[in-house]
């Protein structure tokens, strides 16, 4: 065994998160590369030719990509692993974001002139308790998970497309509630400041020195996101290879057969929904804490579709795929901007108002086109492409 590190001889090593030394090596390289990027360093992708670094707006995109990855992993648990298509992810992201904003945000009061008494009184316009991150971060996840728990009985009764429509209806109802509860959300078109990211006095939202290295606000958020993503991804991976994960796969592949084997469908669908909503809540709270402002109408159907696209383009039922998909979709506007600079794509107009294919429109078309393309040509997503490349080079130069 010592001489054959690639040989898989038992179930334990077959289900290991990192199965061999090559994977362990590249995982370490990836983490080191991300840490270097987060510290503001440059990674040579092709030495001497193509460099990559997270500077300026790219850093914020990187931070968003990390938190979006957590959300995408959450959606993948319910849609990829358990096969229950949910178009309601935006609602759970919103729940997390607003819970965090209410618990961790600051109260806004305004002087209001009371006609009946003739005096001006202090009136609360926005509710905010200014609590610490150690409270609002878990609370955001728990509130979303609780609502997921309430919704899951419907999911147990419905299947396939009907479930998709109910979760779609959830987004519309949620949007309405977010818009109307303006004491908590700021109201449509206005929004509010999000929670202050301060963990037991350590401010993630201010630049400062950590272990003698001075970091900007976004750099701190980047490391917070990186640590959380690694933890949440490992938890999801472990869940997928446990008893629960196997039960979810059975529910997805043939629910009736699963039920015959003693899998309690209601219980496992509920677990999938609750865990997925918890991930969404955490992702939503931090994603908007990194951006700084939230607005109720951003949690619409389009956001749900973005997350579905992340899961599909990345690869359903794979944690690595969710992360790839989330990073890809988050960086898509940037990729389109880069494309517009190339001479082949000179027809893309860079001004937001002029010309037919402007940047935003090309992005939307590319986004739709990618969903269509991946579903037709590569249903396993980016992860599937990666697997094929890996297998090709594993056997190279022999094709079998």
């Amino acid at each position, binding site marked *: 065994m010592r001489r054959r590190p690639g040989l898989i001889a038992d179930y334990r090593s077959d289900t290991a998160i990192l199965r061999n030394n090559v994977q362990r090596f590249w995982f370490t390289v990836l983490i080191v590369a991300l840490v270097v990027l987060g510290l503001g360093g440059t990674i040579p992708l092709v030495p001497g030719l193509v460099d990559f670094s997270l500077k300026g707006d790219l850093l914020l995109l990187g931070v968003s990509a990390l938190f979006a990855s957590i959300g995408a992993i959450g959606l993948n648990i319910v849609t990829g692993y358990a096969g229950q*298509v949910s178009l309601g992810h935006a609602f759970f992201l919103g729940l997390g974001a607003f819970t965090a904003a209410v618990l961790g945000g600051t109260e806004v009061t305004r002087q209001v002139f009371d006609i009946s008494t003739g005096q001006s009184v202090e009136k609360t316009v926005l509710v905010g308790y200014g609590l610490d991150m150690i409270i609002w971060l878990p609370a955001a996840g728990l509130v979303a998970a609780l609502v997921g728990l309430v919704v899951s009985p*419907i999911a147990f*009764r*419905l*299947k*396939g*497309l*009907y479930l*998709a*429509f*109910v979760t*779609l*209806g959830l987004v*519309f*109802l949620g949007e*309405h509630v977010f*818009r*109307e509860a303006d004491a908590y959300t700021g109201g449509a078109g206005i929004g509010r400041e999000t929670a202050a990211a301060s963990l037991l006095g350590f401010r993630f939202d201010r630049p400062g020195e950590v272990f003698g290295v001075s970091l900007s606000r976004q750099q701190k958020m980047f490391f917070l996101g990186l640590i959380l993503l690694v933890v949440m991804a490992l938890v999801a991976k472990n869940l997928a290879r446990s008893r629960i994960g196997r039960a979810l796969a059975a529910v997805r592949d*043939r629910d*009736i*057969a699963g039920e*015959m084997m003693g899998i309690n469908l209601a219980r496992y669908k509920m677990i999938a929904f609750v865990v997925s909503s918890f991930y969404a809540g955490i992702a939503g709270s931090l994603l908007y804490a990194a951006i700084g402002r939230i607005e109720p109408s951003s949690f619409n*159907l389009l956001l749900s*579709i973005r997350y*579905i*696209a992340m899961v*599909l383009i990345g690869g359903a039922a794979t944690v690595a795929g969710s992360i790839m998909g989330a990073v890809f979709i988050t960086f898509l506007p940037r990729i389109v901007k880069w494309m517009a600079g190339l001479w082949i794509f000179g027809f893309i107009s860079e001004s937001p108002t002029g010309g*037919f294919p402007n940047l935003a*429109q090309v992005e*939307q*078309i590319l*986004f*739709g*086109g*990618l*969903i*269509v393309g991946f*579903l*037709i040509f590569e*249903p396993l997503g980016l992860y599937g492409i990666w697997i094929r490349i890996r297998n090709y080079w594993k056997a190279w130069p022999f094709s079998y």
Partner: protein
Amino acid sequence: MTQFLQALVNGTSLAAIYALIALGFVIIYKSTQVFNFAHPALMLLGAYWVVYFATVVRWPFWAAVLMAAGLAALTGVIIERLTLRPMVGKPVFAVAILTIGLNTVIMIIALNLLGISARPVGDPWGLRFFTFEFLGGSLNIAHRQVAALVTAVLLVAALLTFFKYTRFGLAMRAAAFDQEVALTQGVSVTAVFAASWAIASVLAMVGGVFLGAPPGLDRSAAFVALKALPVIVIGGLDSISGALVGALIVGLAEALTFTYQPQHAEFLGRDFAQVVPYLVMFLVLLVRPYGLFGTKEIERV
């Protein structure tokens, strides 16, 4: 009393529009097993052609509608051939997601053609009303509302006759029942697919014209088209009569809420009528998981 009647009238004409759009969903779903999320975009694109031929080229309204119907049918057929034919036999949900992708692409094109401001569709009805005075109130029925109802009834009757009494209608019903068996009986299932996309696309176009009638056509019409989803879910995904009943339920519920909620239940917030269709959908699905008239799926392991 007149307020109540007014709500009923508005609800019924709204229901006529929903019925047109929802029928298209059901026809495509029944005959091709595709749930078409691209319907709102198809509706907008189809209605744009009416706007274009009626107000830019300045053809008579009816000629513009005929031309738009031809173009809408063609668009439907092309989309089916290019993007949905390769997906035959794939899981229903993968195909549904694919149509979401299609929707974004077509929507961008349609919105770009349409521009930002609302465009008049060049309809002959305008803002004229039939006004009835009685019981101390007045009941206003717009010409457009009557036209929508009459058109919807005529189109639905024509379609039902077509499905029931023509050879091709029979072929479509056979393909909806079982594609493989229909194939072995000599039914051209590909022609059925093309025809159902063409019919659905034209129905959506007509619905779009009525949506855009007096205030003008703009992007908000797509959100109204999305409300056809609760309509068909309430009726059951694969039931044509269900779609009609669902349309009536949703149209009336929305109009009644619109009339009475602001006075009697203000705490539910502004524009609550917009989300009522989804609430009704929740309630119906809790009681009947396959809608009111949908076929219950019988599975075997």
